[in-house]
């Protein structure tokens, strides 16, 4: 009964909340609009937005040494997570059967294990830093911790269900994924999408002023 719910109705609800929630959050940003900048431009806003859109993937050399842990752990976690999400065989099978209708080449098992380890190490380091560094301790909100723990559970149940030998483990993974998807639009996990307009707004302002930001 519960298994069927998780496989069926819960998944449907999660998808609906996830999609509508994201659209709602995007509307929440863009409905305010921005005023046109009336100052005579020195450069292009669009190229500034594009430049900043990419430049912020790398740390400025001036503070690189101070934030090496952020950068290394951050990349370990994000890259590991995306590789798992996109190239794990069960995920591709799931996408083919339930979401997209087509699949693509999966990564070998050893690559799955390595990327999971990298992602876990990165996530644990980022979480420890959040708790131990006075700066992040001060500015972190409950939301940041909930997002971290939810994702940890998603990844952990996923790895426990690696060989798909038990329905229970697969269902536990699916259930945590559904929770994660429902939570996503209501949290700062939205940064996964909203980093684009944020960089764009800042980049266009600096682009107009002729500063490479």
């Amino acid at each position, binding site marked *: 009964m519960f298994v069927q719910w998780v496989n069926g109705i819960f998944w449907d609800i999660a998808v609906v909340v996830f999609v509508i929630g994201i659209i709602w959050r995007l509307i929440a940003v863009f409905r305010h609009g921005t005023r046109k900048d009336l100052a005579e431009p020195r450069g292009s806003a669009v190229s500034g937005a594009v430049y900043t859109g990419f430049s912020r993937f790398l740390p400025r050399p001036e503070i690189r040494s101070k934030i090496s842990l952020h950068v290394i752990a951050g990349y370990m976690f994000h890259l590991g997570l995306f590789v798992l999400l996109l190239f794990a065989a069960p995920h591709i099978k799931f996408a083919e059967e339930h979401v997209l209708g087509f699949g693509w080449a999966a990564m070998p098992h050893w690559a799955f294990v390595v990327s999971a380890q990298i992602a876990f190490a990165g996530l644990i380091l980022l979480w420890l830093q959040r708790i131990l560094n006075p*700066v992040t301790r001060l500015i972190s909100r409950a939301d940041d911790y909930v997002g971290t723990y939810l994702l940890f559970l998603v990844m952990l149940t996923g790895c426990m269900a690696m060989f798909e030998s038990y329905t229970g483990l697969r269902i536990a993974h699916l259930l945590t994924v559904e929770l994660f998807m429902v939570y996503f639009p209501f949290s700062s996990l939205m*940064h996964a999408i909203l980093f684009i*307009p944020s960089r764009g707004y800042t980049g266009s302002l600096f682009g107009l002023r002729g500063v490479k930001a």
Partner: protein
Amino acid sequence: MSAALERGVEKLKGEIDARVVSYFSSCVHCGICAEACLFYTETGDERYTPIYKTEPLRKVWQQNHTFWGKLASNLGLSKPLTDSDLADWEELAYDGCSVCSRCTMVCPIGIDIAYMIRKVKEGLAAAGYVPDGLQLAGERALKLGSPMGLTEKSLRAAIAEQEKETGMSIPVDVVGADYLCMLSSNEVVTYAEFIGSITRIFAKAGISWTLSSDYFEATNTGVQIGDSKIAAELSGRIVKVAEKLKVKYVISPECGHAYTTIRWDAPNFLKRKLPFKVVHIMELLEQLHKEGKLKTKGKFNEAVTYHDPCNISRRAGVINQPRSLMNMVATNFEEMHDHGDMNWCCGGGGGVSSNDRAIPLRYKAFDVKKRQLDELSANTIVTACSNCRMILEDGLEHNGMQQEVIGITEFIAHYLE
């Protein structure tokens, strides 16, 4: 809720736009901005983390624009802003931030933190939480036309002194001149050599220019306070005299926020395009040099460095011009390890210099500049902002350092052919 607090909260609500919503919605609280902030790196106090300084605005956004915030507010679980919050953040936003926007440059999400701190100041100012020194400077600027309380009399005195010095006559209120040069109060009382220097350079280059006796002040205390009404009023005065004198260009003098304000913010404050172009004095000098109208002879052979004013480099894009000007006359030009758009602030920007109670903190924050300068052999520091110059001189003296600080226009004028 007190009336003052209510005014502040209403103001903050009105400050929320698409950028603010996007910024707060995407902040992951990684704390990287702290590593870029001189008030944090020099004190080690995590309260000076840049994004933490926007907390009042974040709270208003969270309680009025998010699912969880609205839910908590309706259930009576949220803790609204209090008077004591505003009092705490008055210290963080005015004493512990020079709005240098170095944090903006390093945020991996691309959040313009300085933009939001500026908005926090709007709310604090509306509620009356402004440091006394800055408040008084604002009142003087509105009433007398200069944050230092200078009047036309002081300007006339400075002009007379510089005419004697240079032996040239200085144009004042010339209708139809090409360029109108604004001044900062500092350049009238402390660094009047600036007036003499441009007089000599412009005479050589054959530039048609003028000063204005009606309103000479380039600085804008409204921006430093974060009160856009005062800011619009003060920048409107510049536009008014420029229109009255029918000039084609307005020159922003050696002052950081004066340039950013009149060049980039004034059209948006006044909601119209300006009928003249705005150039920073360095932009003009570099252009004159390129056109062959500014020629120098002799070289400065000792080691010399250049301090970027944040509002001119990072916030307004005048980065290459000072380098080309420096290399024009200096044979041994040294860069500080972080410079250009990632320079370290002198610690006195954003109105900190008008705020006497922030002096101990400002001296602490100056440690980073001290370290930067200690690495160099340069005994001369050239800069392009009279406020930076004043703060640098003060910081050097406080630390018993011997370096000399000089404005770039004056520095160039020494080697005029």
